[in-house]
């Protein structure tokens, strides 16, 4: 479904991504793990057009995402939950969710999707009138995720959903991701919490200083000695 080939990205003189290739098939939950600064967020930003690659291709179902303007990518069925959540702090929960459906014009469809998101995240329904900036970190993560689901995307990119959350909330967020996966949504997950990510993923890629160092079934990577030493603290 999503196919990335030989992606090269530079920040000035810094070579951030050095020929990254990866694929995500329909219905899969694939995670991209690696240390801080390995290029995980850069990879996601390049896919959704926030950063321009100097070479390489990003194809979604045969459409070239790099040929589209960044704001058109959501129209192609790809939603992105950014790192640090980036909810609109001065808007209410419901306004945030409705902004998620900005590209949809059909009010009935929007209301339907809103109810669907509320059923995934009952906590958001309780707080629909509250300003997003006053939510807790976990609730903001739910809001950012719900906002990304408002267009019925075919694939969702999730960037560090567990960042800055308490262990209890991390568990909750991961169980939500698993639920979304079970409901048939394709997910590319970027995580520093490799242990949790591998536990729920089908496949995984390990990114090291801009290169894919390893890839394979998540269950096998979780048993791999190198991965265990470097990322699982074993």
């Amino acid at each position, binding site marked *: 479904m999503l196919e990335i080939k030989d992606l090269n990205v530079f920040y000035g003189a810094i070579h951030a991504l050095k020929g990254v290739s990866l694929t995500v098939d329909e219905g899969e939950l694939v995670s991209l793990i690696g240390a801080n600064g390995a290029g995980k967020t850069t990879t996601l930003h390049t896919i*959704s*057009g*926030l950063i321009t690659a100097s070479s390489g291709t990003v194809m979604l179902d045969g459409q070239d995402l790099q040929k589209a*303007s*960044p*704001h*058109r990518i*959501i*129209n192609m069925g790809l*939603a*992105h939950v*950014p790192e*640090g959540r*980036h*909810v*609109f*702090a*001065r*808007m209410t929960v419901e*306004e945030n969710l*409705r*902004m*998620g459906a*900005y*590209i949809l014009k059909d009010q009935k469809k929007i209301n339907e999707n809103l109810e669907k998101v509320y059923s995934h995240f009952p906590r958001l329904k309780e707080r629909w009138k509250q300003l997003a*900036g*006053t*939510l*807790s*970190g976990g609730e*903001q993560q739910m809001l950012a995720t719900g*906002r*990304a689901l408002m*267009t019925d995307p075919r694939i969702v990119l999730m960037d560090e959903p567990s960042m*800055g959350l308490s262990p209890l909330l991390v568990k909750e967020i991961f169980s939500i991701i698993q639920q979304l996966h079970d409901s048939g949504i394709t997910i590319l997950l970027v995580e520093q919490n490799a242990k949790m990510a591998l536990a729920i993923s089908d496949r995984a890629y390990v990114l090291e200083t801009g290169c894919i160092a390893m890839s394979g079934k998540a269950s096998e990577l979780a048993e791999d000695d190198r991965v265990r030493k470097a990322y699982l603290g074993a």
Partner: protein
Amino acid sequence: MSTFIQTLIVGIRLGSVYALVALGYTMVYGIIRLINFAHGDFIMVGGYTMIFTVPVALALGLPAWAAVAAAAVVCALVGMGTELIAYRPVRKKGSNMTALITAIAMSLFLENLAQAIPAIGPNPKVASQIFAPGGIEIGTVTLEYTTIFTIIISAVVMLLLYWFTQRTRMGRAMRCVAEDKAAATLMGINVNNTILLTFAIGSGLAAVAALMYMAQYPRIYTTMGSLLGLKAFVSAVLGGIGIIPGAVLGGVVIGLVESFTTSYISSSMADTFVFLILIIVLVLKPAGIMGKNVGEKV
């Protein structure tokens, strides 16, 4: 007592002109964090456009407001042109400071360009009466028609703008871009077009402000936007820059301070007090009267 009421009314009238101009500053600041120093000069552009279009409109048998609409369109185009030619390229490559200096340059450019155009030139022009003269008397207080028009039109324009930003799809997109450009892009919002729209609306409001200003002081000159723009900018900062209701509040406060100082102390002290109030408010509340520092929660 009647002096007090008269002063109050004059202050509100003056304040509504400042508020209209302040809205332009605050909207642009809110969306690209740039103090658009050329905004005051958009008022001058609007003023001169009306000088030329009012006689044309009247000659064609059109109502005078058609000339105002033309001025709003011209101002909107100048505002969008400024963004496209000067600000957008600089924003891509330079720092905030570069953009700020570009804005000052744009202001000087517009003032000098106007002087260089033969039909405008350096000498002030007198505007023809747009509103009917006269007024109504309530007790000992005289309410000029121009005052009534100024206050009503400003209030309506501001309410419309508020409705637009809160209730329409484009207005919401504007608020999203103001808060977070990357997230707005991910929602499918065209950030550049939204910024352009903000310039168009803010500059269009400057044309309406030009009308109000000319109704009171029918003299037009190329640097007329400088002090007016500065006071409107002060209004925006006072209310909390980037916040739409803050600009309105700031404008009215500045208008009232100016008119009360003029009536009860001395007209030559009016500007002194305006800026003194600014300093006091910024010392006590640096984000402005309605400004808040929204921290990130984890």
